[in-house]
């Protein structure tokens, strides 16, 4: 019993901490994204609430929460309300195995990578449910697109991750990080540059981010799967999107950029992890405000014609080199 408690309490702490971390990140990144967008378009972004508008996301959150929750007529109410929860709750789990430091890891398990990949697919399910249960044709269209997109982009993502675990022989994220210890030359980006590029592209597809945000193409689908959601129903989807972004960028920096290892020996720590993750997040925002949304057939073509063969090739090459 005691041993059980010993495991449970840190896990609970980690869960609460990741919840806080998720909320904090979402707040900060909503703000940063708007500021980034503003500066790219040479305008100030949010400016009125608080110095340089720093309180804007908080106030927006308050406003969102104070709105009425509506269920559309003839919607499948249980599924309709399950969807935002299903999109949000798995994100909390995703934060647990991410190693922010040798000690600062919520749950050091051997299948950490698998857990992240498995639970990140829940987002697709949540989107389908949301679109289907809304009793709205745009919602259904958005959901249909989201399925084909997530399913498609999952495969190259898995293949690149597989290439990494072939090399390391483990699915434990802490182990993968420690293997990249020492200096910058040990980071897997040098050994797996193609995998890094594929992961980067698939990351945009997986998180429904522009230029691959076709599930919620607001111009064609009037916001797609979450057209009908008001108040925190929408808020949860919104939070989850930012949550997934942070998770994906964290995983990317663990797999390819050495996680909490610094570029030179002796200065590793959680701040490196944060720095790399935030650099990747900034890159995602940068890309979003640079490229126009692709067409749907283009989206699938990029995946099936390019990412998938390249990822397979990369995997086979990795296997071959390891065998030799």
């Amino acid at each position: 019993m005691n041993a059980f408690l010993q495991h449970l309490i840190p896990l609970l702490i980690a869960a609460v901490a990741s919840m806080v971390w998720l909320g904090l990140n979402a707040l900060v990144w909503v703000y940063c994204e708007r500021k980034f967008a503003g500066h790219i378009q040479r305008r100030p972004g949010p400016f009125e609430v608080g110095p340089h508008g720093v309180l804007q996301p908080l106030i927006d959150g308050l406003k969102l929460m104070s709105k009425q929750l509506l269920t559309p007529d003839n919607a499948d109410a249980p599924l309709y309300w399950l969807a935002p929860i299903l999109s949000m709750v798995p994100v909390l789990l995703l934060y647990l195995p991410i190693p922010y430091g040798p000690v600062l890891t919520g749950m050091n398990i051997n299948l950490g990578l698998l857990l992240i990949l498995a639970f990140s697919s829940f987002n697709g399910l949540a989107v389908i449910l949301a679109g289907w249960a809304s009793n709205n044709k745009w919602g259904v269209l958005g959901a249909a697109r989201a399925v084909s997109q997530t399913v498609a982009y999952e495969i190259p993502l898995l293949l690149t991750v597989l290439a990494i675990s072939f090399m390391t022989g483990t699915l434990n994220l802490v182990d993968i990080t420690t293997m990249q210890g020492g200096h910058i030359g040990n980071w897997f980006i040098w050994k797996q540059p193609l995998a890094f590029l594929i992961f980067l592209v698939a990351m945009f597809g997986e998180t429904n981010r522009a230029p691959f945000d076709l599930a919620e193409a607001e111009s064609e689908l009037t916001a797609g799967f979450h057209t009908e959601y008001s108040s925190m129903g929408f808020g949860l989807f919104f939070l989850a999107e930012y949550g997934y972004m942070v998770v994906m960028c964290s995983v990317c920096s663990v797999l390819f950029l050495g996680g909490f290892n610094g570029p030179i020996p002796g200065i590793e720590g959680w701040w490196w992890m944060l720095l790399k993750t935030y650099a990747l997040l900034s890159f995602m925002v940068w890309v979003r405000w640079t490229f126009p949304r692709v067409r749907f057939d283009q989206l699938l073509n990029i995946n099936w014609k390019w990412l998938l063969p390249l990822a397979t090739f990369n995997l086979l090459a990795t296997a071959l080199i390891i065998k030799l």
Partner: protein
Amino acid sequence: MGKFKENVIQPILDCWSLIVGLKITGKYFCKPLVTVHYPREVIDDENLRTYGGHVELIGKPKDPATPKCISCMMCVTNCPSNCLKVVKQKAPKPTPEQEAAMKAAEEAGEKVTAPKAPKNPAKFTYDYTLCSLCGTCIDNCPVKSLKFSNNIYWVATSRKEMNIDLLARLKEQATEFPAPAPKTEAVPAAAEKEA
């Protein structure tokens, strides 16, 4: 070979354009802002010169309170949105002396010259809510009596306030020259009183 080039080499080369795009937005990210924080900052008049706001009258060079307008109705006829209204001035009632003179002329069999109506309009109203800012009225005015204003600060809470008396506005501009731009709110009120 041609197919291979088209389907494989070209897309890879095209990826370069993505980097070019990122470079451009990256450059803009570092450039200074071009917008102003409106209520606290306004842009200077130099930058407003090219702004085409609502239509307004141009005064005579010597008498800025009266427009150059000759009430020819060209602008009213040509406006596709029907937002201009011009009322011509009536001929003034002859004064007793003039009447006497006219009578004398009639009796003497001479040509009677009734006093002519002044050419400048009695009323010139303009409904900004209808105007499409097409500039047709400006192009068609034979005496160049119309122009786009540089006023970007005009707000109103009702449609009625957007229906302005251009003569009153011109008079105001002439008296308070150079008119401060946000002052225009006073004009509709004056227009209403007259109406």
